[in-house]
């Protein structure tokens, strides 16, 4: 575990030295504001239907629960692409991985370390931005329109703090595996962007419809699927494959 942390810590520090990491964080904040208009539109629709305060409060609770379920996941995925660039893509392009693999550290540990170096900061940033965004939406829209500050359901909180990090780690393990063995690791990085777009449009559609979806079960199912895939992929990750996939 110690070696894994040594490897991961170095990669995380390198990523935070880059300006683009901070630009991404700013972009996440900007994205959060798009939910203000989504929420306003939802409440306006209810007001047009002459819905009472209880109905607005209930719809707001569902909306904010959906945010608690989806925002940390989407933001984590989005920012994963920048951390993966530092953790794997740069190291592979400069052949630093060759030297790392020649040390006594096992390739499995390198794989896990690289995955943690992508997952940990991404999840922490995503949670921080989500919490700030959640409070901002509450203060700017929910309190005036629904009559009070709405806290997400315990299940949504558990999902944000436990299920989402594990799900992100499971996804990152697979993407990092692909980055390690593909001659062009940037292709694997596109997976993050693809998943983000899928989640963004999917979640926006669900939240604007005000549907009460059980995300926890979906996440648990996805975690199981991704971890099983990662488990079956692991034997095929060899030093030789990684080495020969590096160009130059």
């Amino acid at each position, binding site marked *: 575990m110690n*070696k894994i942390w*040594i*490897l991961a810590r*170095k990669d995380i520090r*390198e990523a935070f*030295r880059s300006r683009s990491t901070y630009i991404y964080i700013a972009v996440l904040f900007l994205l959060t504001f798009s939910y203000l208009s989504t929420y306003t539109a939802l409440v306006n629709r209810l007001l047009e239907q002459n819905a009472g305060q209880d109905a607005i409060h209930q719809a707001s609770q569902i909306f904010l629960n959906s945010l608690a379920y989806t925002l940390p996941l989407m933001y984590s995925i989005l920012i994963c692409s920048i951390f993966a660039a530092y953790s794997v893509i740069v190291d592979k392009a*400069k*052949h*630093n991985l*060759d*030297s*790392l*693999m*020649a*040390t*006594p*550290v*096992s390739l499995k540990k390198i794989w896990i370390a690289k995955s943690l170096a992508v997952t940990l900061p991404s999840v922490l940033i995503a949670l921080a931005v989500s919490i700030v965004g959640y409070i901002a939406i509450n203060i700017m829209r929910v309190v005036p329109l629904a009559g009070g500050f709405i806290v997400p359901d315990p299940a949504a909180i558990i999902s944000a703090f436990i299920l989402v990090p594990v799900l992100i780690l499971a996804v990152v393990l697979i993407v990092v595996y692909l980055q390690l063995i593909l001659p062009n690791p940037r292709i694997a990085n596109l997976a993050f962007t693809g998943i983000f777009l899928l989640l963004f449009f999917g979640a926006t559609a669900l939240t604007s419809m005000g549907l009460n979806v059980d995300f926890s079960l979906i996440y648990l199912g996805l975690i199981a699927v991704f971890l099983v895939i990662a488990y079956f992929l692991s034997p095929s990750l*060899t*030093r*030789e494959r990684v*080495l*020969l996939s590096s160009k130059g």
Partner: protein
Amino acid sequence: MENIITLENVSKHLGRREILKNVNLDVKQGDILGYLGPNGAGKTTTIRIILGLMRADSGRVSVLGQDVQIDSVRQKIGFVLETDGLFDNLTADDNLLYYASLYDVPLAAEKIAKAIQLVGLSDRAKDKVGTYSKGMRQRLALARSMVPGPAVLVLDEPTAGVDPTGQIEIRQIMLDMIRKEGKTILLSSHNLDEVQRICNRVALIHRGQIRLSGELEKLQHEMSRGGLTIETAEPVPPAVVEELKHLPGLFVREQKERVLQLSAGPQDVPGIIAWLVSQGIGIEQVKKLEASLEEIYTTILKEAETGNE
């Protein structure tokens, strides 16, 4: 002496291409083995197999008696690869500290300071490696290989890109590691002069096959093929040289001023000397000629090329 690195009948294919063909190689305790060969001969693949970065298709590879695929074996192997593996955004100190922590090196800070001093980078230890020249990076990579205190070092062209003064210093460091610390070194290099200066053994690989290996001194004697240098008191007259050419069992390689280079069997040498003296030629010195590593290298490669045709 104990074998530190052993390769027995090692073969390796990459796709359809056979990179190594039944390679046998051993590096004994205290050796500096110069691993030579033209580009694409299989040197880097051999090094990658020794470091456990690749698996041999067949044959046996061991370092310090253990299978190189076992992670803990690499604890005792220092390395310099083709690419230095250094991180541009970290200082020299931090780069070495990072690698030292992967080897669980005790008293790492002290060892790092010593290694950096040894390669002459103390005044730049706090600078980011991204600002280093190629030569400085090579020195730092060598310093990194020393920090874990390995029993064996596998060095792939450690002086590539280093200026002549730096090359001399690195050579001295390698010699000190052997003489003072009892290390064993496998040195892959294109620099024949460097290998001749510091290596006690050499192996020459060509098209995936070891064409020659052994103690450098012995090889130089053997490859001289009865070479002999005779220094005479006066320049040898052309007529005498012409007559000499017709004597049985000898071949006149070259004659310049007072130096005569011949090839002859050891049993013929006294007769040749006596004949020259009888012709009134004063002999000042007779030396057995040693083939240079460059001669050995080119001869073996030419033979290999001819044999392959």
